[in-house]
């Protein structure tokens, strides 16, 4: 397992090196600069010159790359154009995004699994569940987020329309982010249930006189838990991307909003910091997910080579 992780880590580091270099090239060729954003119309030529030096705009691409690489090795990512340490700014935003993703993940799991199982328990509602979830899968996250905002915040006044003051404020954005993923979890649960219900052990359990809900909870759900967890971990990565949209709509100062700010303010250190940290997070999730898959394969007696 260790050589496998080491190989993956090596390719991940090589890719990030390429990506950072590519971002620096694009940033240099982009119109405008961080100095212009900071100085605005008030700054004269001399002040702009000074700001250009301060923000690293005068550096060559390789020079800038060496500085960024040095910061990456020290794991501090340098400073933002406003002079704050990137690592603190990103981690502060990351915490909010993680809470949001946590809410979304929990909601998706509860929503998808409960609907998936209930659909097979009460088959008359199954086709409606299927249609609703297909419609959910067809809707972009921003439309779901906007509809929830209009209905529950602006019309019914049940939730705050934006900002973050307590954990309670994450509920509506969490639902908005998790609903689409919940539809994916529903499809997964439904397919799994369909497959398992046709297996012999279910028939045997029924023949022994187990009630429907006992068969579901005692046998099928138990069998489903590991692959479901693996599938859910795969979905977690998408929350970090979807968070960018939800954070913008609900004015949450998370990673997505920070990324937009970094792009609009030409803050290359902040941009690199966000992309590296988010990618590292997803890299860890991928490794955990593959470990879970390996454990599941072990249960099935199918030991794949890593």
């Amino acid at each position, binding site marked *: 397992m260790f050589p496998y992780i080491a190989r993956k880590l090596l390719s991940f580091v090589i890719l990030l090196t390429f990506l950072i270099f590519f971002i620096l090239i694009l940033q240099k060729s982009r119109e405008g600069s961080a100095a212009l954003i900071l100085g605005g119309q008030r700054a004269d030529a001399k002040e702009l010159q000074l700001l250009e030096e301060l923000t690293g705009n005068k550096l060559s691409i390789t020079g800038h790359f060496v500085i960024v690489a040095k910061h990456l090795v020290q794991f501090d990512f340098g400073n933002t154009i406003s002079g704050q340490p990137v690592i603190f700014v990103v981690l502060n935003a990351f915490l909010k995004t993680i809470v949001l993703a946590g809410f979304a993940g929990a909601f998706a799991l509860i929503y998808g699994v409960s609907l998936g199982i209930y659909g097979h328990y009460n088959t008359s509602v199954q086709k409606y569940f299927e249609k609703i979830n297909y419609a959910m899968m067809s809707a*972009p996250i*921003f*439309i779901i987020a906007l509809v929830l905002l*209009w209905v529950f915040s602006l019309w019914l006044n049940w939730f705050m329309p934006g900002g973050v003051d307590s954990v309670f404020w994450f509920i509506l954005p969490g639902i908005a982010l998790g609903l689409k993923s919940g539809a994916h979890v529903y499809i997964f649960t439904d397919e799994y249930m369909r497959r398992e219900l046709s297996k012999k052990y279910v028939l045997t359990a029924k023949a022994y006189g187990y009630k429907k809900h006992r068969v579901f909870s005692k046998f099928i759900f138990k069998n489903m838990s590991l692959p479901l967890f693996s599938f859910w971990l795969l979905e977690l*990565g998408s929350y970090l991307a979807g968070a960018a*949209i939800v954070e913008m709509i609900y004015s949450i100062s998370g990673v997505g909003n920070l990324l937009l700010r970094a792009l609009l303010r030409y803050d290359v250190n902040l941009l690199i910091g*966000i*992309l590296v940290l988010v*990618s590292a997070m997803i890299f860890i999730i991928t490794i955990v997910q593959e470990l879970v898959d390996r454990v599941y394969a072990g249960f099935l007696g199918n030991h794949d080579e890593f």
Partner: protein
Amino acid sequence: MSFKAVKLKDNIPIIFVIAFPAVLGIFMLFGRPQIHPQLAYQKPYIHGITDFSLFGYSPLGEDMLGLMAWGYWQTVLVAVFGRGLALLLSFLGLFIAWTFVLPRLSIFKFQFKSHFGFFWMSRFSEAFMTIPSLLLALSLGYLIGEGFYTMIIVIGVSEWAFNQKWLLGRLNEYKRFPFIEASKAMGGGKLHIYGRHFLSFILSDLFFLFFLYLPGSLLTVTALEFLGLSSGSEIAGLGSIIALNKDLIFFYPHVILPPSALIIITVFISLVLKNKFMTKFTDLNKVRA
């Protein structure tokens, strides 16, 4: 001679797929909607056979139907060409993976075998998948600069890795087919095997892959448009129309609800198409196996 009965019910999705864009295309023939400040915010009305507006007017006084038709085509074309670029990149990546001999470098051992290209391309695409495609697309879009072609490049690059990983998996399966082994044993070179045996399989894979990720591409394009990446200076995509009018929902719902419904219908059609091709593809794979 026998005729196979064609059921209308089975072909409804296909008919819808052709008819829906065609109807919107007809509305494009009337020309790009013009700004008429005096008609701004006007709600849908029907005063007569010639005097009507089915979807009302935008805050700038543009006809909403025309705006949606142009926006629909802009969004769909970006998604379709973006998918095309992603597939082209992954096709080239597959060729490199099959033909190139690169050192398989490991911190534990140094090997030099014939599948080095495959090994590196596989690792590289796996690593690429750890970067969230939407965040990558957003970053690239802002760094390169807005525009129709930028959006296509952004979609192509950010979605390349998923296609590449999928195609590499398929190549791994094809490599084990007995007739490939036989071709190798008879002295068939890498290029010969790729061109003569793999290509026909890969082309059908590419066709399937196009529809497999099309719903995702459409959602990414609309999301990028919503986040402020414009795919055209003169025509607003569907995501941009919603982003511009999202605060007007309670006063002028006609400027936001129809474009939202249009996006959902478009993605739903692509999902139906995906499912239809997935069934056909599974059948084809059974025949191949």
